[in-house]
């Protein structure tokens, strides 16, 4: 086994173990960052495949996304800090069936499909062709996904903003006075 093989298996094991911990931990914040650890391992595998931009962009984007996800989950949930223990799993029966079906499907796909093997010459430029592909032939898919994500983000902001559909959520509330006796006077 070469060094590259050893590093690959180490990263693959990290991705799987961290992914498993996402569901076994008891806090939304920890779950988010275990998922991030899993994605970072996947990003590192992409780096090993010679996709420098995609690998680093995965790590970069996942870091931002998991941080935002942790923040929004805590904002929308009853557990204000994310430190109180709570279960990360629900709907066990459905989850087990969905998990097995997905695993069998993806496994069958990976084993049955004839995966392409076209090694690039060392030092080949890959970032610029990727950009041309994304903003050329694949532009429709790329932009549809982008606009959908943007719409989702705007909806999330509307749902979580202080002035929602029913007016400001803190209407009528008064911040505590600096003068402790002010309450009694009024």
């Amino acid at each position: 086994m070469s060094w590259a093989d050893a590093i690959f298996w180490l990263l693959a094991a990290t991705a799987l173990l961290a992914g498993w911990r996402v569901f076994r931990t008891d806090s939304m914040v920890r779950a988010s960052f275990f998922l991030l650890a899993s994605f970072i391992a996947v990003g590192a595998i992409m780096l090993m495949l010679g996709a420098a931009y995609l690998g680093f962009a995965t790590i970069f984007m996942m870091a931002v996304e998991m941080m935002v996800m942790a923040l929004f989950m805590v904002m929308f949930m009853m557990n204000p800090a994310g430190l109180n223990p709570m279960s990360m799993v629900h709907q066990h029966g459905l989850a087990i069936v969905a998990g097995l079906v997905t695993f069998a499907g993806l496994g069958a796909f990976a084993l049955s499909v004839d995966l392409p093997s076209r090694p690039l010459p060392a030092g080949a430029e890959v970032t610029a062709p990727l950009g041309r592909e994304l903003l050329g032939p694949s532009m429709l898919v790329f932009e549809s996904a982008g606009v959908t994500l943007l719409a989702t983000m705007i909806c999330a902001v509307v749902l979580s903003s202080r002035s929602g559909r029913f007016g400001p959520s803190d209407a009528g509330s008064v911040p505590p006075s600096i003068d402790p006796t002010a309450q009694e006077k009024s």
Partner: protein
Amino acid sequence: MSPLGALGVTLGVLVAGVVLVGLLDALARLVLGPVPLETPDRLTLEGLRGAVRRQSLTTEHPDLAAWRLAPAAYLGLAAAGLALVPVAADRAAVDVEAGIVVWGAVESLTVIAVFLHGWSSNSLLPLLGAYRFVAIGLSVMLVSMFVLIGAALPAESLRLTAIVESQRGLWNAVRQPLGLPLFLLLGLAITLRGPMDYADSADLAGGTSAEDSGAPRLAWQFARAAMLVAFATMAATVFLGGPLGPLLPGPVWLLLKAGFVAALLVALGRLLARPDASRMLTFIWVVLLPLSFLDLAIAGLETLR
């Protein structure tokens, strides 16, 4: 550069830079007076002695793994950022194809390290600092991304050595006048300084490090200074032409420019006031983000010309 040589150079510059940051902070204290309400254990010799001698206390039910690992992650990210910087026009300790994207990853993971540092101690003021910092840190990081894309445009490459090479005629700081000032704000944020210090500020009794003591406290302060070193060299590379310059050898120019940026950041951290977090957030989204779009437009037009 051999891997061991690269590691040696990076760590050497990091430690020397941290000492320099400590000196700059001491100089700022001498010129501008002590910081009101500041905990007096920043990187001074006295602070070092105390940190080694004192025991490290913990809170009730902390996430101890995350709490102890956060300073290590912060320091590791600083080292990773510093390793990307080209020390001469054609070589860096780690010269990767998408260097500027790696720096972006360093920025975003830094926000997570600071958040976990505050969150994991299971204590009110650190938690407030952590959440406040995420809101500000992510927003100002977005600004820095557009600014960095602008800096990569004239080079037509994401490689940092190419970005240095593209500044042979004119520095990006001159060509894109909005770039460096906006990037400096990110520097203040990820090094937790002055107007952008929403994590460790005095109004939260030290924020995310309010519960830190002993050696972990020292490690956190060290990592903070190390991040300033990494940021200063990166800003010098992307906007001030990095190692390019007449007469003197490249690495000397890089260190001079990075020293200037570090001094500027320390001074700005002391001279600018910090507004309320919600006001700052509005300011970032309403003023700074459009300015970064403008910077990108200027960079694009300049490149097309």
